[in-house]
């Protein structure tokens, strides 16, 4: 059996899955990066646009408010030129239609409040400070001018925010100036409600960078929030975006006021980008998972049957005889491979059986050929012995010898049968012993002890003779004392045992081993090894020779074979 070589290559699943996953990952990363980059710039653009739109809307609203103020002022100036009665009438009608006008006031050239027209209100008798009128500014201005938003401070318990427009009345007689206080709350709540994104807002700034109106006025004063108006005032109209804030400036007509829109990149852009990032991340994961799954399934389709095939091949390699082919499923290519493998397995197994059978037959033939041979030395010696007997006139002995020799040959041939009855084999062995006993001049004795029931069993012919030959040649020939050979045949369970025991010089275990291994070499005839081989070829490995030997004590050879009766062997 071969030692398994440790695997160094990667498995197809690993290769395929990692390849697909890495390719998909790279592509996804590129796509997400490019997409997010584009998306971000688009978002920034749209944030700028929405900021600009909001600001320009506020700007036009404030502008129309100012224009409206201008027109109202023109109207009021005309009224002021009328007779007092007519003037009061016109003004009260004007105030009725314009609820956003808080007060119309007229001032003497010294800046004293002359008259006040306000719906349902009278000014305080003692005005602490009138924020709607400033004499110095009024004197300096020749045209109507607008004052920044302030609190109306001439009434008691009523302090609305107003914007005042003041105009000189050149021909107004008593009154030198007229002021119109217009409520600012409309504009302020409008600005409050402008939102750019969720947190973005607009505020109103004058040319010097002072905040005219800011929706989070109170936060600014408490220092909890600050607006870098100085920097903003230096900028021209337009949109400026930095990392956190998008500022958008726009002038309100020619009033000197500017609308500043502030919106947050974080909420308008980053939040959307983050959202999109998250979404694309989720998508990427889904795609990745899908590709993982697909590649895994694909590789399973390839890898699993291939490995099944490899495993089948491995087990075939280990034990080709007992391998049974089972088809491996999978793709068509694999199925074809599997089928080819199946055909190959069948072919190889068939070939193996043929080879084995042929080998056995060859061996049998070989052995049969050997059996028919007689050691020529044995024949010469025997014939010499017979000739010697005849010369000495020991005719009776010579006849016995000739008979024994004739029996020996007859049984050896046995009409070409391989198996002969035990009785015949015993007869063969006895003939041999008889001849050898004459030749060795009665140097040994022998005895047979055969179970009569065993006589009818069949055994391989020329089984005992090589053993006995060995016992005489290697055991008894060198012995000084008289030798003895005992041949016993008995049954042992299902088997028949032939036992050849001598009291010769014996053998060392190494010698025993070599006898069982060695081919007869230049000796002709059957060697002990051949006897063993033959028994095992015919009956199987559990049968054969067993040698126990001890130097100076003797050797016992046990031959074991199954009990075979006439007719049994044909079935084998």
């Amino acid at each position, binding site marked *: 059996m071969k030692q398994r070589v440790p695997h160094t290559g990667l498995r197809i699943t690993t290769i395929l899955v990692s390849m697909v996953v890495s390719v998909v990952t790279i592509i996804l990363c590129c796509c997400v990066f490019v997409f997010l980059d584009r998306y971000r710039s688009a978002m920034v653009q749209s944030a700028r646009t929405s900021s600009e739109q909001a600001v320009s809307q506020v700007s036009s609203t404030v502008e129309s408010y100012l224009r409206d103020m201008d027109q109202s002022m023109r109207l009021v100036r005309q009224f002021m030129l009328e007779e007092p009665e007519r003037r009061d009438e016109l003004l009260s009608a004007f105030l009725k239609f314009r609820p956003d006008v808080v007060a119309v006031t007229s001032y003497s050239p010294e800046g004293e409040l002359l008259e006040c027209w306000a719906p349902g209100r009278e000014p305080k008798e003692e005005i602490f400070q009138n924020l709607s009128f400033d004499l110095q500014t009024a004197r300096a201005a020749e045209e109507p001018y607008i004052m920044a938003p302030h609190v109306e401070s001439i009434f*008691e*318990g*009523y302090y609305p925010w107003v914007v005042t427009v003041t105009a000189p009345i050149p021909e107004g007689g008593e009154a030198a100036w007229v002021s119109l206080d217009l409520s600012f709350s409309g504009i302020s709540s409008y600005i409050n409600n402008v939102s750019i994104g969720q947190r973005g807002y607009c505020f109103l700034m004058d040319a010097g960078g002072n905040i005219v109106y800011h929706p989070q006025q*109170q936060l600014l*004063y408490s220092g*909890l929030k600050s607006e870098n108006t100085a920097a903003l005032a230096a900028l021209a109209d337009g949109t400026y975006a930095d990392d956190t804030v998008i500022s958008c400036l726009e002038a309100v007509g020619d009033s000197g006021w500017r609308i500043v829109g502030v919106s947050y990149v974080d909420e308008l852009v980053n939040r959307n980008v983050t959202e999109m990032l*998250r979404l694309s991340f989720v998508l990427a994961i*889904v795609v990745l998972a899908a590709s993982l799954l697909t590649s895994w399934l694909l590789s399973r389709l390839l890898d699993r049957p291939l490995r099944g095939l490899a495993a089948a091949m491995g087990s075939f390699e280990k034990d080709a005889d007992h391998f049974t082919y089972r088809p491996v499923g999978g793709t068509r290519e694999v199925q074809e491979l599997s089928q080819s493998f199946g055909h190959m397995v069948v072919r190889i197994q068939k070939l193996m059986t043929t080879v084995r059978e042929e080998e056995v037959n060859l061996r049998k033939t070989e052995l049969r050929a050997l059996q028919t041979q007689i050691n020529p030395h044995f024949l010469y010696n025997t014939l010499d012995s017979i000739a010697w007997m005849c010369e000495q006139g020991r005719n009776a002995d010579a006849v016995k010898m000739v008979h024994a020799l004739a029996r020996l040959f007859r049984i050896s041939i046995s009409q070409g049968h391989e198996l002969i009855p035990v009785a015949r084999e015993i007869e063969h062995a006895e003939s041999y012993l008889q001849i050898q006993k004459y030749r060795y001049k009665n140097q040994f004795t022998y005895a047979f002890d055969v179970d009569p029931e065993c006589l009818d069993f069949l055994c391989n012919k020329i089984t005992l003779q090589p053993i006995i030959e060995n016992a005489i040649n290697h055991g008894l020939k060198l012995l000084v004392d008289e030798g003895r050979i005992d041949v016993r045949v008995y049954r042992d369970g299902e088997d028949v045992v032939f036992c050849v025991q001598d009291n010769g010089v014996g053998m060392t275990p190494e010698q025993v081993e070599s006898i069982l291994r060695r081919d007869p070499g230049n000796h002709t005839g059957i060697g002990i090894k051949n006897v063993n081989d033959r028994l095992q070829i015919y009956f199987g490995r559990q049968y054969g020779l067993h040698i126990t030997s001890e130097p100076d004590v003797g050797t016992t050879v046990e031959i074991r074979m199954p009990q075979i009766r006439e007719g049994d062997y044909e079935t084998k």
Partner: protein
Amino acid sequence: MKRSKSILLCILLTLFCLCGCLSENTMPTQHSVVLIAKSTSTEFWLSVFAGAEAAATEYNVNLTIIGPETEEDYEAQNAMVERAVQENAEAIVFSAIDFENNAGAIDAAAQAGVQVVAIDSSVDSTAVKTYIGTDNYAAGRMAAQTALGRLDGTLNVGIVNYDISSANGQERERGAKDVFMESGRAEITAVINTLAEAETARIDTAALLAEHPEINVLLAFNEPTSVGAAQAVGDLGLSEQVFLVGFDSNVVTVDCLQEGSVDALVVQNPYAMGYLGVESAYRLLSGGSKDVQHVVDTSTRIVDRENLFSIDSQKALFAFEQRTH
């Protein structure tokens, strides 16, 4: 094969979990915040609400504003806290009428997992994550220093304070007393605790002035008591004699400031309290308590006749929004 299958299954499961988590996170949530005020009628509180609403709009918070009928009803406040918890408010922006007696309800609310932000006046509870309001002790000192700065000679001080259990009133009083003590030329003639309601305050102040005609400095520590005290001083014709320092502003005290019955006002920043209160609640709900300071001092300023109509004071004193009085 079995092993790799289970590994793959695990990976897929984790991925889907991740996906689930992510998609859940993308859902925008509107936090619900309840602002429980001390009152819903005074100018001060209206300004707080304006700030709170501005922040609610800015941070997309579902804001509910409630408050008791009178500024003494801490039990009604406790009931409101309980109801807010029942109605699954996530955060309460709270202004305690009673420093001690409101603590139980607030602790219980915090126990239920509600974040608590205190504005204007705090409560005796460790559950309060942040206090946003005036440094009342400093405000009290400021009031007293104003009086000391304007007047020479000996000062006989009368203090018109509101509910004795209010931490704010007591802190202001302590600050003022400390400054008067340090000056060495002032004496606290009398201290009264009246209701935070103008009419009662007027009557009580009038009684105080009748009982102690020597009083030449009067301190009132919140909006209604300031109004009451101003009216009492005006009614009694003592505008010249009595130097009145009030707290907070409304049209009445501003009128009185111009007339002379009120001489100075300590103006807090209620808009910032409301705004920052809701903003802090939002931060606590969305980002944890890392970026929320424990105490935030909203600014106070002194407004007197000189700076009444400066543009900054105008903006601090008068709301842009039109309110009905």
